[in-house]
């Protein structure tokens, strides 16, 4: 049974998407439970595989049995669950499941009469994201990337007003990224004659430092950066996620960018190798510089915004810099931090967007000035929001603290002080944002328990949204407390053995 689990991860949402599209045609309400069922199957399989991988090591699965026998050679597509992606798969499917439950009320109010295909697109997006995470074939990865991208363009274009233009810009940028990636795959294919990640990584060391390989590497990276909105390719993200319907933003913001970061990590760690990166030091220092700039730029723009959704988007941008920078430190703590932060950040941004979604659901918008008294109106949501921001700031014992811990340790080890400074600066900026919101939402109103002040009516978000939000926020603390076992049993084994101290 265990050997079939990897395929269940993508089959769950894929089948759900297909069936839900038809079911919506027959009965509009049928699609939501179907998608949830598919995601439950996927999450259960992914969770089980975390334990299997931790115990037995990587699980490989050959689609259709092609390639399972050595005489088949490189024919066929392999999917792999190993130490590098198992946590990501569990996080993506888990967050997707919670978001699907969370989004129901939002979709009903934001997209009345148009919710039919939303869930099918949602499931398709998750299929694409999980596919990127699980595939062991770099061309297959491109296909999944485009599945995810196409459904996310549609999900964003569901929004009102500027959403179409934002989706169009995202489409241009996303397609460019995917094409660059594909071109890079072509270069790798010319040199190695295979698309299977295992085979490529076996073949590459013998090929040395060829120019074609280097060009392929850079092209693949550029593609991944465009997809993850890494500085300077970040222009599309804030508009796209702000103007998208909240239900779409809640799923896209945490997952889409993280999966792109995973693509980069996979290419750096498994396809090419860390040695390869260390032997091209010029580009390493450039990327580290860009990461610091991404963090600083994201942080400062988030300070200047007055819309809560916009702030959240720029926070996502600065977090991207964390992961790229951590990966390019190319040492043990830095990579540990990057791999850990992919999961931690997916959880943190998910919780952040969920809390913001609750606020938008009740208040109708999310301008900072309109948040007066929000702490009295929605105490539970705001408690979750504060925990989430604390995680983003890096307050122990939330997961954000530990990723920052590893990243700073890695930067200190390599002596990249500008990266340390950028990390700390971004922490402080997020603290400023949090307390600005606390001041507006809590302190700037006359306290209702004082005589004569009107009571602010309690108007909490509905339970179907509140429970996932609170669960996510508590998950941040749980993830933080589980850092040591996760790092010891899984993440440490995902890194190349040459890095061990």
């Amino acid at each position, binding site marked *: 049974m265990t050997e079939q689990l990897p395929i269940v991860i993508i089959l769950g949402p894929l089948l759900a998407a297909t069936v839900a599209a038809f079911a919506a045609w027959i009965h509009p309400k049928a699609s939501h439970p179907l998608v949830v069922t598919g995601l439950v199957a996927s999450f259960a399989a992914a969770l089980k595989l975390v334990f299997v991988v931790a115990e037995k090591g990587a699980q490989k699965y050959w689609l259709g049995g092609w390639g399972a026998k050595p005489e088949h050679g490189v024919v066929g597509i392999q999917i792999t669950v190993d130490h590098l992606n198992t946590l990501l798969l569990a996080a993506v499917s888990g967050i997707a499941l919670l978001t699907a439950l969370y989004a129901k009320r939002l979709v009903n109010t934001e997209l009345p009469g148009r919710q039919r295909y939303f869930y099918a697109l949602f499931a398709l997006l998750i299929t694409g994201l999980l596919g990127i995470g699980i595939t062991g074939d770099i061309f297959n990865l491109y296909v999944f990337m485009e599945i995810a991208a196409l459904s996310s363009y549609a999900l964003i274009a569901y929004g009102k007003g500027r959403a179409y233009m934002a989706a169009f810009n995202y489409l241009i940028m996303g397609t460019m990224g995917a094409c660059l990636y594909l071109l890079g795959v072509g270069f790798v294919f010319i040199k190695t004659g295979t698309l299977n990640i295992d085979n490529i990584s076996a073949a590459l060391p013998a090929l040395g430092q060829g120019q074609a390989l280097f060009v392929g590497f850079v092209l693949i990276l550029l593609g991944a950066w465009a997809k993850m909105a890494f500085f300077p390719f970040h222009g599309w993200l804030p508009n796209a996620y702000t103007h998208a319907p909240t239900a779409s933003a809640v799923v896209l913001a945490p997952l889409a960018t993280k999966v792109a970061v995973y693509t980069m990590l996979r290419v750096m760690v498994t396809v090419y190798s860390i040695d390869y990166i260390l032997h091209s030091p010029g580009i390493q220092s450039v990327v580290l510089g860009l990461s610091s700039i991404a963090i600083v730029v994201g942080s400062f723009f988030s300070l200047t915004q007055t819309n809560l959704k916009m702030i959240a988007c720029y926070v996502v941008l600065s977090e991207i810099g964390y992961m790229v920078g951590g990966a390019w430190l190319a040492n043990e*703590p830095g990579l540990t931090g990057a791999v850990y932060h992919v999961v931690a950040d997916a959880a943190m941004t998910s919780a952040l967007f969920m809390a913001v979604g609750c606020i938008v659901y009740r208040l109708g918008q999310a301008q900072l000035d309109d948040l007066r008294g929000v702490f009295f109106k929605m105490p539970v949501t705001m408690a979750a929001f504060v925990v989430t921001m*604390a995680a983003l*700031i*890096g*307050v*122990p*014992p939330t997961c954000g603290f*530990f990723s*920052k*811990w*590893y990243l*700073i*340790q890695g930067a*200190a*080890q390599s002596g990249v002080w500008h990266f*340390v400074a950028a990390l*700390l600066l971004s*922490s*402080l900026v997020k*603290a400023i944002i949090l*307390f600005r919101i606390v*001041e507006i939402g*809590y*302190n*700037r109103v*006359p*306290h209702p*328990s*004082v*005589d004569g002040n009107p009571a602010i009516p309690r108007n909490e978000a509905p339970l179907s949204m509140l429970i996932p939000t609170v669960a996510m926020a508590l998950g941040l603390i749980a993830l*933080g*407390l589980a*850092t*040591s*076992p996760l*790092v*010891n049993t899984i993440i440490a084994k995902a890194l190349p053995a040459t890095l061990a101290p």
Partner: protein
Amino acid sequence: METVSSTLPVWIVATSSIAALLLALLGRWPNLREACIFGAAVIKLGLLLSLAPTVLDGKRVGFEVIELIPNVSLAFRVDALGLMFALVSVSLWIPTTIFSMGFLRPLKRHAQTRFYFFFAIAISSAVGVAFSANLLTLFIFYEILSLSTYPLVTHHQDDDAIKGGRKYLTYLLGTSVALALPAMIIVYQQTGSLDFTNGGVFAEGTSSTMLTVLLVMFLFGFAKAGLMPLHAWLPGAMVAPAPVSALLHAVAVVKVGVFSIIRVLTGVFGVERLVDMPSLSTIVCVLAAFTLIVASLIALTQDNIKSRLAYSTIGQLSYIILGVGLATKAGIAGAALHIPMHAFGKIPLFLCAGAIYQACGAKCISEIHGLGHKFPLTMTAFFIGSLCVIGLPPTGGFISKWYLLTGSLSSGQQWAFAVFLSSSLLNAAYFLPVIYKAFFAKPSDPARLAKAKEPPPMTVVPLFITSAGCLLLFFFSSELFRFADTFAELFVSR
């Protein structure tokens, strides 16, 4: 040294957090709510005292909760210094709560449940800091303390409170994230361990530049200790209600800062290293001595009672840092002893500031000229508290200053002796005139004179409990000294 494994430290830390949750639920019934606090405080105190014999025996009580990152756990370990600090914070929690009841209830202050809730959380985290076995655990509780006291500082929710709260967080969160956190990570990256070890964690031959940079980062990173120039948050935090200023900004929060620095100096750097590398010890001493003198001078100029007390606190905290920086046995013991002595001395002063406000609505010293005889009990408590802070017998402050002075002589740093003495004179210069003027100066405001009267018993009783504490500590100082001595013995024999 032997470490006894027991879950007791975890429970002691958790008691007041559990109480916080309970009292949040009991918010509608004020009597039950406050009974809950007393219950928790008594239980906590009892548990703490039950640890005392083991700890005084030279053993430590430890427990490892969960491993957070490889080789570093969320772990508690109670030694003499930690236990003494916890005892002081918890025992002062009781009179402060009585005072809060007298102070908040008659004024129908808003959000009392929130006030008590965060107060209890703050006590939990202060005890958590006291019991931390490694730098990471300490840092975690340190941050929780900063965050949980923010709602207390901004309690009044007016513009002043918001401004003070902003300053509070900027200083405390900013320095801990920007300085203490990277310093801690560098220590971990260099040594692979964050446990407090008597001889320090650094290997022989660690470059002195690195050590100096780390030391400065730690000293300023734990800005709760109020070393100049990162002291401005403390006068800003005086916008908080009087009980908060009393327990948190004279005892728990500020002492946590000093305590963290003591831990870093003794457990991370190691006293031996301070002795071997005089440059390190000099940095500590010079920073502390500078703060000591300058803060006392500024205190002279303050008219607002609470600001004067705040600057006095900043100066007294540096006594402790300077004592440890001297790296002699008497110095360390004196520094450790100064934690409870100053706490017991400063608390009646702050409570008096609150009581005076309640008695006649005055916040400044110039406003209470000649009003002393209207509330003699309050002013008597103020007098005893001042004696203790100045360091005159028969109060506990005398004992700790005695050891600090002995320590400065035995270290051979005579200038520290002079600094201690001159600062004590300054202390007398900014406290005694307050009392003189309150009783003998001509009343400045007849309207206020007519209105002034002794505050209600709920306010006055805690004043007397705490100032009686100052006197008792003088006569029973040997009990407390055993704690300080057990702690100091770990490090230096000379």
